[in-house]
Structure formats: structure tokens, C-alpha cells
């Protein structure tokens, strides 16, 4: 079974600085998808960024980028120029390729990010 580990229960960063959230996973599959979701106090789960395992290039979305190391099974999230609105729980998630509905998301336990003004 796949597992996702986020080793940092809490992190803090100064506004405008950069922070990196760690995530490792365990799988025997070669093809899969990885995601970072953000959950602000509003409770809504918001997709931040996604990475397909077959792509060697690291995904980037504006201030958010990932460092995907497939051999090491590592998928860290870097937030540049941190803003107060980035404060939230961040969840790393793994998903198998599409298989008619059996491809569930497996989540890490989350990292609570605080942004200090």
C-alpha cells in the first residue's frame, strides 16, 4: 500500500521569504501522480500544484514549485515570496493512475504553515 509522510507538523516563515515543505512517499508503482493541496481555515481543499511521475521537469505554478526526486521518492514544495494568505495546512497526496475509480488519493498528515508579518 502507498504511504505519504510529511515529517514537519508545523513550519513558519517570514512574509516575503521562502519556505520548503517536505514530503516523501512509498510506492511500488512507476506511474503515478503527486499533489500538494492547501487547506486554509475556511476548510476548503485547494489544489496548489500537481506532478506527473513520468515528467522529469519539476512543476511550477507562479510562486509555488516542487522538487520531485523520483528515485528518492521525495516531493517537496517550495513557496517563494511568502504571503500572509499562504498560511494554511498543506497536504501532500499520492494518486495511482486512473483505473475506473479505484485510484484514491493517499494523504500525508499535513504541515501547518504560519506566515509571520
Amino acid at each position, binding site marked *: 500500500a502507498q504511504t505519504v509522510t510529511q515529517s514537519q507538523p508545523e513550519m513558519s516563515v517570514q512574509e516575503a521569504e521562502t519556505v520548503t515543505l517536505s514530503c516523501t512517499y512509498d510506492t511500488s508503482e512507476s506511474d503515478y*501522480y503527486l499533489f500538494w493541496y492547501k487547506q486554509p481555515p475556511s476548510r476548503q*481543499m485547494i489544489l496548489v500544484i*500537481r506532478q506527473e511521475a513520468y515528467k522529469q521537469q519539476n512543476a511550477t505554478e507562479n510562486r509555488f514549485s516542487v522538487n520531485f526526486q523520483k528515485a528518492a521518492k521525495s516531493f517537496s514544495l517550495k513557496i517563494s515570496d511568502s504571503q500572509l494568505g499562504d498560511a494554511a495546512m498543506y497536504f501532500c497526496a499520492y*494518486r495511482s*493512475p486512473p483505473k475506473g*475509480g479505484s*485510484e484514491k*488519493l493517499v494523504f500525508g498528515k*499535513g504541515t501547518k504553515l504560519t506566515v509571520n508579518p
Partner: protein
Amino acid sequence: DTAVSQTPKYLVTQMGNDKSIKCEQNLGHDTMYWYKQDSKKFLKIMFSYNNKELIINETVPNRFSPKSPDKAHLNLHINSLELGDSAVYFCASSQDLETVNTEAFFGQGTRLTVV
């Protein structure tokens, strides 16, 4: 337009009661899910449906019964509610075709409190 909508957003009820949470998606997705987020924020799959067919049933007590009248709706009915059922329940949907976006879109969650 809300892509995945759940009702109600909050639900407070007494032990032993039966309650339902409704979920609808207007994204045309084939697959819908129920996830449970416990008090420590841990998210775990409960069920998935693909085109109204149950695919995943992740060792959930049989007091929980999902129902999918069509592929746009997935409701969750809970019988004989217990204190330990208190949690946030998320509905989600995704498209399962290999060439289409595979991320899951989540509803806003239903906070269930059993007293």
C-alpha cells in the same frame, strides 16, 4: 458556479440519530469520493463511485451507506450516529480518463458534530 457542492456545511445531531449529507458535482466527472478528516486533520478515503458503481469501500462501518442516484450525485447516509463519527466529511470528484486532468476537486466539507 460551484463545481462540487455539499449540503449541509454544518450538522449537529444527537447520538443514535440517522443523518444524510448530499453532494453534487457539475463537472461531468465519472468518479466521486467521500473522504473523512478527523480531529487531527488526517484525511482518509471512505468510498469511491465510478458511474454510479461502488469501487472503493475502505473498511468503513456498515452504518455508513453511500448512494449514487446518478454520476453527478453521491450522498452519504449515516445510521445510529456515534460520538466517534464527529469529523469533517469531504465529497470530491475526478475524471478517470488517462488524458484528462486527474486532480480531485473537493466540496467545502461538512462538519458533523455528534453530541
